[in-house]
């Protein structure tokens, strides 16, 4: 931190102040903080959710278990983690499209999707997606047929939501591992879908 700010009211210096005071109290250790940050950056992310979705697409019995009890199903893959007392997985179909939000703060299924993208935490998404979900999805590049019902899940308590997107056409020959590489975070929040590789989607 050789070139840091000299403004004592900056978030940077306030954070440093907080860290050094809590370190003096013996509550935290800076090396431990570094280690946890690395874990967030390297290990905890939407790849876990992608593995869950790929398995649900290729194993109908796992899909049933996942929709019935999200936590038990992801535990089969060795996934558990912070901020997720109960996971509910909502399946997209030709008739129903699901999308997840937290209007009161920014609750999100960290254990399967990692930390949320910035837009998920900002007032524009939080205020608008419950009122005009189709317009928001359109802005984000997803146009739904008028006949599709949109279900918005506002995570107002300790239940966390993840969307099980539809498997795209033309992926029948792909393995579970290959499928996991084409499933993106936005599809599991419900603001996107999964495209067939090679299509312009």
């Amino acid at each position, binding site marked *: 931190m050789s070139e840091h700010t*000299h*403004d*004592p*009211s900056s*978030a*940077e210096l*306030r*954070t*440093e*102040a*907080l*860290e*050094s*005071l*809590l370190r*003096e*109290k*013996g*509550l*935290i250790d800076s090396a431990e*903080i570094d280690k*946890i*940050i690395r874990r*967030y*950056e390297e290990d905890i992310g939407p790849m876990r959710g992608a593995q869950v979705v790929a398995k649900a697409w290729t194993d109908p019995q796992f899909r049933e278990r996942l929709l019935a009890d999200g936590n038990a199903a992801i535990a089969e893959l060795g996934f558990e983690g912070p901020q997720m*007392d*109960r996971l509910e997985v909502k399946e997209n179909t030709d008739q129903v499209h699901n999308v997840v939000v937290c*209007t*009161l703060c*920014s609750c999100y299924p960290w254990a399967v999707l990692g*930390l949320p*993208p*910035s*837009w998920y935490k*900002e*007032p*524009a*998404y*939080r*205020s*608008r997606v*419950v*009122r*005009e*979900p*189709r317009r*928001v999805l359109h*802005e*984000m590049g997803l146009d739904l047929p008028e006949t599709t*019902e*949109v*279900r*918005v*899940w*506002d*995570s*107002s*308590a*300790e*239940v966390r939501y993840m969307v099980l997107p539809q498997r795209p056409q033309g992926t029948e020959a792909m393995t579970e591992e290959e499928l996991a590489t084409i499933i993106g975070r936005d599809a599991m929040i419900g603001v996107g879908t999964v495209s067939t590789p090679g299509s312009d989607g």
Partner: protein
Amino acid sequence: MDGIHDLGGMHGFGPIEVEVDAPLFKEAWQARTHVITGLARGRLGLKIDKFRHSIERLDALTYLGAGYYGRWLASLEQLLVEEGILEASELVERSRALAAGEPLTPSSATGGKIEAKRGGGGTAFREVAQQPRFEPGTAVRARNMHPSGHTRLPGYAKGKQGAVAAIYPACVFPDTNAHDLGENPQHLYSVRFSGEELWGNDAEAQSQIYLDLFESYLEPSHE
């Protein structure tokens, strides 16, 4: 509380701004604030409901202007001072000394080392003896209630009629837990509201909004 955090349904926040390939943390302090908050909360036994309420109590300009991790930082500072872990003057003095590049002298304002607590985390779900008051499919109305403290009943659902979509396990009640008034676990429901019920003629076609609502937020609806 009817605060700025209760954003559902508000107009005026503009388009969704999506950044492609954004880093997980834009600035180093954001990552540190994220982790420090988690560690401090766990080791001091600061409940999530208390932390959320601390964010809600930030003044509206700070809430909107500080950004996500700015809110975390300000609310953690606020909470640590309120809980007697740090003094506000210590934080100010330490930031000043860091800005001036002075050697740090250990702060003595609130004494020395603090013993970390064990078992601060854990599930918010609880077993309760009483049966759920509402069955799936039951028409319910979200109460028109406006407590000044913490609540997880979003403003846009207040007074609106919905239907119970599912019964979840009973859960610690944030409205009391955030204020150290007890866990008071109660049944939690997934409640479905139609777009038309929430937004009238301005609703989009075929939209359903599901909220997770505590039993005491709900009353039977006889419509």
